[in-house]
């Protein structure tokens, strides 16, 4: 039977697990989401406090100082990060969780080995998997962070025999893992750790920046899984429950996202999407198609005298941090009696719901945000579509050109609107790295420049229009 301390810890873990589950459930509705997050935080506090009662813990200094430093770093970054940089923040925190799981697995192995305890098959396997998955999640997240922060190039980075090399590392990991489980050996486990670190980076480098939402989601569920595995290593059910909850949700989110792009998860991971130059697309666009440019003044007039305007935000809006400016422009238009809506593609931006979060920050009312299925039927009756930094999600090739790499991805049918104005930094390609026929369409006018600057200029011109 459990002693008093053990009972307190066990019941606290049960309470914490229930709070995590209710917290996640409440996250499913906008009105309760915030309290859901707080319930989960309370659950976390209970679980962590109860753990301090564990008899295994004899020294508190390392824990106290480490927690203070970690919390200070975490809270500082979480408070100061721009809303536009949210995706890379999640990636970074996720990487830290992965590193923790790997280090815990390694340390527990070293402790057991030193104490001369026999490591069972289940424990040994959990240690190897926890180490490897945690380490992959760590470097994978760091690379994803680097790509989103534009420290690393967003384009897929490839070299010859990349897949062969990755497969060999994976094979080596497997063999080393079996050795650790059957024979032990801390050097072998460290080698597993190092090989997994390399594999994590190699696995994310060839994936294009546009696919980072799916990658972060996969890495998120991997970290959950690694946390659950440390639960098996430490015989701690709390870790198993919480880790698996995250693993399951991350997997579900990953599937939802790839469905929205009409691609399989395998295709996202191994397709090196956007690295291959698209011969057909480039050839088609080169055939005497011209780009028609416009000015902020002309754009303002077109918008002012429209009856209905649909704004299509994309990653460019996030990069330019133009969410407030676009909201101001929309308000001015509404005051003139123009009907303004926003069309939100499920994978616009770099995270699912990225655009919703940005526009919510700028106080855009929910009922102005239309999802793809709601808005697609309305485009033929729309006078002006204003595309702000979106590219692949409005590319008609996904609908019309079977040879396009994004063929079959559901898109916003903006080319069916009466007029299209595209705000864009340059004629550069989107993250998928393919040409967009929309930009050469006779109904399309291009306004080049930073999205926020362009929107400000349109706003000023609107006042005199």
């Amino acid at each position: 039977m459990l002693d008093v301390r053990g009972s307190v810890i066990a019941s606290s873990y049960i309470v914490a697990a229930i709070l995590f589950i209710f917290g996640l459930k409440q996250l499913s509705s906008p009105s309760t989401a915030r309290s859901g997050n707080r319930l989960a935080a309370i659950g976390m506090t209970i679980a962590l406090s109860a753990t301090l009662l564990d008899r295994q813990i004899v020294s508190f200094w390392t824990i106290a100082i480490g927690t203070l430093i970690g919390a200070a770093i975490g809270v500082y970054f979480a408070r100061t990060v721009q809303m536009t940089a949210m995706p890379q923040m999640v990636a970074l925190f996720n990487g830290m969780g992965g590193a923790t799981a790997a280090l815990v697995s390694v340390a527990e192995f070293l402790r057991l080995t030193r104490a001369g305890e026999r490591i069972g098959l289940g424990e040994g396997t959990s240690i190897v998997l926890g180490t490897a998955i945690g380490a992959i999640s760590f470097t994978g997240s760091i690379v994803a962070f680097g790509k989103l922060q534009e420290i690393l190039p967003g384009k897929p980075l490839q070299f010859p025999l990349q897949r062969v090399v990755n497969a060999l590392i994976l094979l080596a990991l497997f063999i080393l893992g079996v050795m650790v489980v059957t024979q032990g050996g801390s050097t072998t486990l460290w080698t597993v750790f190092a090989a997994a670190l390399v594999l994590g980076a190699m696995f994310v480098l060839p994936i294009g920046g546009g696919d980072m939402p799916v990658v972060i989601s996969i890495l998120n569920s991997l970290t959950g899984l690694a946390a659950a595995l440390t639960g098996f290593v430490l015989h701690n059910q709390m870790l198993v429950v919480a880790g698996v909850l995250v693993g399951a949700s991350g997997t579900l989110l990953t599937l939802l996202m790839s469905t929205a792009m009409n691609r399989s998860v395998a295709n996202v991971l191994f397709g090196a999407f956007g690295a291959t130059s698209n011969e057909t697309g480039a050839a088609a666009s080169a055939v005497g198609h011209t780009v028609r440019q416009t000015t902020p003044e002309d754009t303002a007039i077109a918008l002012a005298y429209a009856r209905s305007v649909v704004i299509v935000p994309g990653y460019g809006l996030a990069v330019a941090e133009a969410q407030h400016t676009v909201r101001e422009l929309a308000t001015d238009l509404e005051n003139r009696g123009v009907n303004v809506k926003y069309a939100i593609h499920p994978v616009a931006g770099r995270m699912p719901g990225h655009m919703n979060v940005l526009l919510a920050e700028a106080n855009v009312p929910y009922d102005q945000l239309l999802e793809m299925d709601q808005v697609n039927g309305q485009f033929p009756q729309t006078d002006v579509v204003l595309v702000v930094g979106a590219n692949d999600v409005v590319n008609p090739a996904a609908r019309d050109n079977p040879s396009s790499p994004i063929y079959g991805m559901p898109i916003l049918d903006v080319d069916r609107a009466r007029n299209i104005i595209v705000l864009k930094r340059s004629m550069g390609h989107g993250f998928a790295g393919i040409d967009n026929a929309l930009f050469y369409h006779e109904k399309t006018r291009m306004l080049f420049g930073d999205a926020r600057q362009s929107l400000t200029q349109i706003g000023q011109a609107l006042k005199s229009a």
Partner: protein
Amino acid sequence: MSQELVLGIYVFIMAIFVGFEVISRVPSVLHTPLMSGTNAIHGIVVLGAFLVAGSADTPLLHTLGFIAVVFGAANVFGGFVVTDRMLEMFKKREIPQGEKKDA
């Protein structure tokens, strides 16, 4: 297989079903905060770091434990605060079709 391992596997499988069931009803608007919120929850792994750091008896184990606690704590605290910041922006608005949107 030990009794405890079998029990652990049961818990593992049940938690998968609970995770799917609870989360499959989240509207896409809340996917980013959800990802961020679950990201904070897997910071629970800092609990393992507590156990390792608190029972360390060699300099190497102390160092590993310490780094693990720092990283894990950053994951937990940063994760919850950043999620709260995201959700703060949703609170002012009344809830229109939020829930009806594809769940």
